[in-house]
């Protein structure tokens, strides 16, 4: 553990948050929320990339970090975009074409995703293990 640097811990946090995102997506989808096929794939890619970063500093680590961050960003903005009516209707206290009861899940997903994106980007700036 002594060889692990800050980048490792950031990647680890990102990885955990990506898993949490995936679990949330499963629940969200089960409750009727829109989750496109590419979102599932992106979430899986994000988990794999961030997990790969945990293997320590490798020649490809920088690229997997970038791909993981991009995948998380795609999940975040797409789920938010597809849930925009959930949020709009919840804010207006109406039920029209969305599922306002899922608005809190949209907020939660967005929150978890944003933190994950930030940690993923931060991890990209840092080494995963001490030289």
């Amino acid at each position, binding site marked *: 553990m002594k060889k692990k640097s800050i980048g490792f811990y950031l990647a680890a946090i990102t990885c955990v948050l990506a898993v949490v995102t995936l679990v949330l997506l499963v629940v969200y989808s089960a409750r009727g929320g829109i989750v496109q096929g590419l979102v599932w794939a992106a979430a899986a890619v994000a988990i794999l990339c961030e997990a790969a970063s945990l293997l320590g500093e490798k*020649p490809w680590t*920088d*690229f997997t*970090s*970038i791909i993981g*961050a*991009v995948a*998380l*960003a*795609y999940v*975040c*903005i*797409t789920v*938010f*975009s*597809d849930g*925009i*009516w959930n949020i709009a*209707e*919840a804010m*207006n*206290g*109406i*039920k*029209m*074409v969305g599922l*306002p*009861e*899922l608005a*809190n*899940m949209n*907020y*939660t997903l967005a929150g978890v995703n944003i933190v994950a*994106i930030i940690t*993923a*980007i*931060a991890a*990209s*700036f*840092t*080494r995963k293990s001490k030289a």
Partner: protein
Amino acid sequence: MKNSKLWSGLTSLFAVILVIALVGNTLATANASYINSQLGINTARVVEKGTAPTDTTYYKSQFGAFDDAEAQAKAIAAALEQNINEMREGAALLKNDGALPMADAVKISVFGHGAVDPAYQASSAGTKASTGSVNTVDLKTALEAQGFEVNAKLWDGLLSGTAARGELRQGWGGMTIAVTGSAAGSEENRAFYEQYADTFADYSDAAIVVFTREGAEGTDLMMQDKDDEGGSAEPISSLALHKNERDLLEMVRANFGKVVVLLNSPNQMEVHEIKEYADAILFIGYPGHQGFTGVAEILKGAVNPSGKLVDTYATSSLSAPAVVNSGTDTPLFLNVDEINATIGDDERAEYISFQAENIYIGYRYYETRYADAVMGQGNASSSVGALAGAAAWSYADEVQYPFGYGLSYTSFEQTLDSVTVGEKEITAKVTVKNTGDVAGKSVVQLYAQTPYGQYEIDHKVEKSAIAIVGFGKTQLLQPGASETLTITVDRYLLASYDVTANDGQGGYILSEGDYYLAIGDDAHDALNNVLAAQGYTTGNGMTADGVSAKSYKWAEKFNSEEFRYGENGVAVSNQFADCDLNYWIDGAGTYLSRSDWAGTFPVRQTSVNATKEMMDVLDGEWYEKPADAPSFAEVAAAFGAESGLNLAYMKDIPLSDTETWDLFIHQLQVEDLPNATAESFSCPAVGELSPSFAVGDGCDSVGGNYPIPVKNGEEEITVPTTRYCSNPIMTGTFNYDIIANRGTMMGEDGMWSNFMINYNVGNDLHRTPFGGRSFEYMSECPTMNYLAGAVEVEAMEKTGSHAAPKHFVGNDQEFYRDGVACFFTEQAFREGNLRAFEGSVRVANSGGIMQSFSRIGLKWNSASYALNTQVLRNEWGWNGAIDTDAAPCFGEYVDGGYRNHAAEVLAAGTQEWCLDGVGGHGTWVLNKARETDDGYLLSLLKDAAVSWEYAISRSVIANGYSSASVIEHITPWWATAINVTTIASGCLAGLCLVMLVLSKVKSGKKN
């Protein structure tokens, strides 16, 4: 930090920004209309290319120029005055044991969570008024303005109370979501109020108690609600008193000499218990911005109440026959899983609402059953459908306040002077005398009874024993003064729809037999006057003896010709046979009939297994290219031809001049046509023909803003358009002048907001007391809506901002409204739902309509050819713009789903898709027409463009156009910003990636 880490991090950062910009661009483009409307961005402007014309403001405000701050101030003041006038004349005094007016009362205590947190409106479209918001007058302020001194400790205590409307439920992550529709927890408990008991004595002139009920768009009030803690363990109606409310009434009764209850609810609360505790009850609905001023004036006596109920207040809100299959109790199809597996759950074909009540909604049920009970016919006195435990059905037990009921601080005497039955109209003269000792206004209500004989029984033509056919209101009559009102009645309102008439073709008939007109203080009183003329008395079970002199009788022969043809000579004929459940499954449903109340009253829910044939229709795919359809190229060839015509010229061209309209529209490219089907918060420009513009939405407020910012203290603010009283208050004025002025002022609101059209006239029926949007809809009575709607729309159409009634048609519930399959008899549909809109649409020629989410029979309303083409276009001869209810494309059209059968919708006659600001449906249709070489579909898109441009040319949007004006398109700044961000982040991400690779290569060489 090593270089590779820097480039790696920067690549991540810019790549993430790039992804967000790319996906965000899709999101922003899909919602461009909303973004533009919120930011006040117009994506096109009119540019003058010739000599500046003298005056191109074709549609002017009555208050002055649109850039004149003083004129704007006058418009705002007039709107707020209209809001107050609605309450002054629409609030209905239901009980008054001498408690009101409170001229001498000064120090009062105000109770009820609804006092400090009233529903100014429920959640839906339009401006939101709330305590402290611009122009809003709260109850305390209004009371103090009338000289009342409000118990401040109690008021402040209520402000910090914990009661909240709607059942609070745990949401995700510990957050709570308020679900409206429940009354549980909406009132503070007894212990809360007991904290303030020591303040009562100092403010004991009167206790005012406010009770509130609130639904919302998408949320009906609950038929099976839970009670407050410690109350009933069994479900209760949300409209019944809940435990905390009962405890509160007990407490104030014990502590105050005068108890006045305000019903802050457009839905009919169960008032029988309230009557036991209260000295006075005032129905105030939702007050909007300043309706509380009118309430306070009534309480003080500055205004004499003259409003009347537009709904029946039943003892049990669950006793109406319509309740059993609707609202929160709407049943599922029995084979819902099979339906979803067969046609997909995106078709939203799960719920079925069998309208077993037939024509008997509201008073048409209670009063008709009463008449039959008096006359001893149709098993009306049977216990079937009576209150729980009753041995027989009894009107006195069933109804607390009838339709049209409302007290005054004075008394009036009404005399039916004469009735003249003409060929087209019936004219009644009624003299009203103020026999009391204070000035007041009196409502004259004119009702009709038409024959119900053997023909009607044999042919299943149902008749309400009484129906309002006209009304009027006096000026302010001083004590002893009198006024004679003349009320004309269109004979059409006496006709009934008979599916067997004209050799089975169907049509409206005038039954053979005796007809009665009667005046009355309410529907029940008028019916009693008719029954008196027929020789019935209290000895026959009447609740009171009627006055036969207040009725008029004449005879008609059977007549199926008088209303055989609609506008333009089109025969009126059966169109909705397939909306009867029995059409699909013989004997599946029984409709209520006065021929046998006991045998036909719905005592259990009706649902069925949808057959394969039914699922084929529920699937929504029926469009086929006509065999004689022209080719796409043939129709497309006419487009792109410059004719020099523009809106300034077209505003004077009638729609019947199809040649000129074709020349105008053919200036477009076919690719421009989808924008003419795109109705949204901000509608896009259509080629070079019309600019982008916004529309209004909301039945008690168009939801706009006045253009000139005003000072509010130090702050400069934008003033929103006025939230008027809820519609049952406006309709309850029974005052055509006030109803017309609502139309005028909403038109003004629309013009000042630069709205082409406003989806703002609520013509749907209060099918049950539980409708979540009853506050937006006029009444339970189709002829009331017909009469009031015609006046409101006619006035609004005289302004430069169109009226568009909604939700056409039959959307009488909010829960499960998405695709709910409504089944009914054609008579009930035509005399109920359709007639409720007919005044606004056919008679007053509204500029448009908005449809509903529900199905009529198995077809989505928007995809019903019978409804949109046969009835609206052919029978009614109406040419306004037909818009779906919300059908956004989310940026990309999805082929399938019940709102997305675009070809079917267009072929049915619907021409715009609501909240589809990107024209996704229209684009899909255009592509389909091109792919299938279907010139007919393309011609339907052209027709939609004609209809849309016709409405635009008759609106404030045409202001500023001269014959030399052209449209210049503008890219909104946010779109430019996103594009710049996309390009910049893309370039930077690419650059950083290259640098990363280079650094890796360099580092590799070093190693």
